[in-house]
């Protein structure tokens, strides 16, 4: 097992390298630069700025420099938020995004899972249709529709929660972002769970368990659920990577100081280092969570062996 993990981490290095290379050149080829503002900068100042940040060197040199810095764990300074290095921005923002994302993910897995199981057990009955309808609604109504509606009802009209502030992570401030982040995920998890649970309940070992006269509870929780969890596990990996690195929409609407909002902003402002940093962090999360998924696979399904 340990050897497998080691091997996987080794193969992640070339992947990461390719990702860094592609995105480095992609953002560099894009027209414009970090110091192109609407009111043109004095050319001398601009030249100085470029020299300061090493942007006057040839592109391949900059690329090698960047790789070198990256290997030393240095993401470089942010161009548009000049008082911060990218690492500092992540140190502040990432815990916030992770906190909200993890809560949303756990909420989605629990509620979505339960809904899916209920629907599977009551297949083609009212409860099933209700779950399917909710799940379809949840995955079709965009977050930026749900979020303002949430704000209007619970914050403006009922005045139960603040409209949009972070408030150092007070629980009331977090409900909105967590719920709006979780809703689409709940929908997807419920659908997956329903499908895989129906299939699991049809399998031979469940028929045997029924024939042996096991209680419903033990059949569902001990025998069916285990097999049914596999698709959820493989979905949860990429979903976790996406949720934990912050959602642009939710962080913008609810004014959360996470890292999700940096991405679009940085890409549009050609804040090269910040964009690259975000790409690297997202890629790292994706790789790590995919690895966790594969390990979990072996835990859930003993037939899976990695030796």
């Amino acid at each position, binding site marked *: 097992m340990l050897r497998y993990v080691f091997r996987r981490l080794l193969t992640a290095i070339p*992947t990461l390298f390719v990702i860094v290379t592609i995105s480095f050149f*992609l953002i560099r080829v894009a*027209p414009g630069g970090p110091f192109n503002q609407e009111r043109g900068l004095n050319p001398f100042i601009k030249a100085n700025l470029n020299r300061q940040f090493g942007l006057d060197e040839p592109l391949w040199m900059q690329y090698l420099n960047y790789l070198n810095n990256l290997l030393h764990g240095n993401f470089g300074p942010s161009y548009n938020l000049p008082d911060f290095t990218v690492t500092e921005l992540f140190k502040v923002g990432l815990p916030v995004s992770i906190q909200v994302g993890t809560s949303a993910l756990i909420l989605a897995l629990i509620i979505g899972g339960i809904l899916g199981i209920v629907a599977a057990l009551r297949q083609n009955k009212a409860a099933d249709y209700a779950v399917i309808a909710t799940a379809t609604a949840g995955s079709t*109504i965009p977050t930026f529709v749900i979020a303002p509606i949430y704000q209007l009802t619970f914050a403006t009209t009922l005045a139960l929660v603040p409209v949009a502030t972070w408030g150092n992570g007070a629980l009331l401030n977090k409900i909105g972002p967590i719920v709006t982040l979780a809703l689409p995920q709940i929908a997807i998890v419920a659908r997956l769970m329903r499908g895989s649970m129906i299939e699991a309940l049809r399998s031979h070992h469940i028929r045997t368990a029924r024939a042996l006269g096991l209680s419903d509870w033990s059949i569902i929780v001990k025998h069916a659920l285990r097999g049914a969890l596999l698709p959820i596990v493989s979905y949860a990996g990429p979903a976790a990577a996406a949720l934990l690195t912050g959602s642009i929409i939710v962080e913008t609407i609810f004014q959360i100081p996470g890292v999700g909002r940096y991405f679009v902003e940085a890409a549009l402002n050609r804040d090269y280092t910040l964009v690259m940093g975000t790409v690297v962090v997202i890629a790292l999360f994706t790789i790590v969570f995919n690895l966790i998924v594969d390990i979990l696979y072996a835990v859930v399904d003993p037939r899976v062996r990695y030796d």
Partner: protein
Amino acid sequence: MTDITASAPVVGRSLWADALARLKANRAAMFSLFYLTLMALVCVFGPNFTPHAYTTIYPDYVRTQPSLSAYPKPEMIETALQDVVRRMRADLEDWHEQDERVFVTISSPKTIDERVTRYLDRSDTFDNARIESKSPDGLKLTMSATVKKQYFFFGTDNTGRDLLTRTLMAGRVSLSIGLLAGCVAVAIGVLYGATAGFLGGKTDEVMMRIVDVLYSLPFIFFVIMLVVFFGRNFVLMFLAVGAVLWLDMARIVRGQALSIRRQEYVQAAEALGVGSGGILRRHIVPNLLGPVVIYMTLLVPQVIILESFLSFLGLGVQEPMTSWGVLISQGAKNIGSANWLLLFPAFFLVSTLFALNFVGDGLRDALDPKDR
């Protein structure tokens, strides 16, 4: 002579006919299909029949509430008149309505130019203005004008444009973007996936490795870069978005192609000496069609959501052209004061996505009997 009634030859139902029958039996899917057709027709032809153009601005009707009855409402005539008279730089003395015409008397310390009737004609509320009488000293003027009846079934937006027409125009844009990008993604994905699956071996491995790498690139980064490169040309942009979305399709098609190639009937065909072109045409393509069609119906809503997401960030379709995403993002900003700006476009978008999902599910059930 005896009539021999020729018995009709027994026609076996093809698998496609079977699937069609299953689809027809699925009421939710059939209703959704009907709804989608209706939505497409309304969005494509509707804007030609609505009384307003999607770009026309009515300064008198900014943020007007949706209403089935005609505007102006009786209480609005007075405000509109005050507005017009203020523009004439005169004072409103008196007004009354008679025989469908509004009679206005204005006064001014200076002689009134008769051309002020133009101000009435120019307003969105009045039409056919004419002078009724004028006081001899020219300081008082009575005019009459008809009231323009306007219908704003969905209300108007922040700049006074008819929301009904805009919602339909937006539907045109959103639906065509969905279809366009969906087709591009399917075309690339099928070609790529089928090639990888059909060739197999090292080629397959390399091709799929490329897909894996592209997969771990943050998707939104890709899209933003495309927006940056292609600017605001939305056709080009969504061709590009389609070119990004093909990854899933390629994986699905490759997997299918691999498994179909190993099926006994393909081996049997090979044993019978059918060439690879024939196998491709007779066995692989028809069997791929099912998953491709299903995935396509799920891809179109994805693209529409993606488009609305981009528009929400201000990167999508640009004014005065509009899309459901643009309308919804404007509506979300005005949700406290003018909720219809959010409700109507959101209803159109969500119901379309709903219908597409149901059609997709119905197709899956119809085409993939194993899954039922």
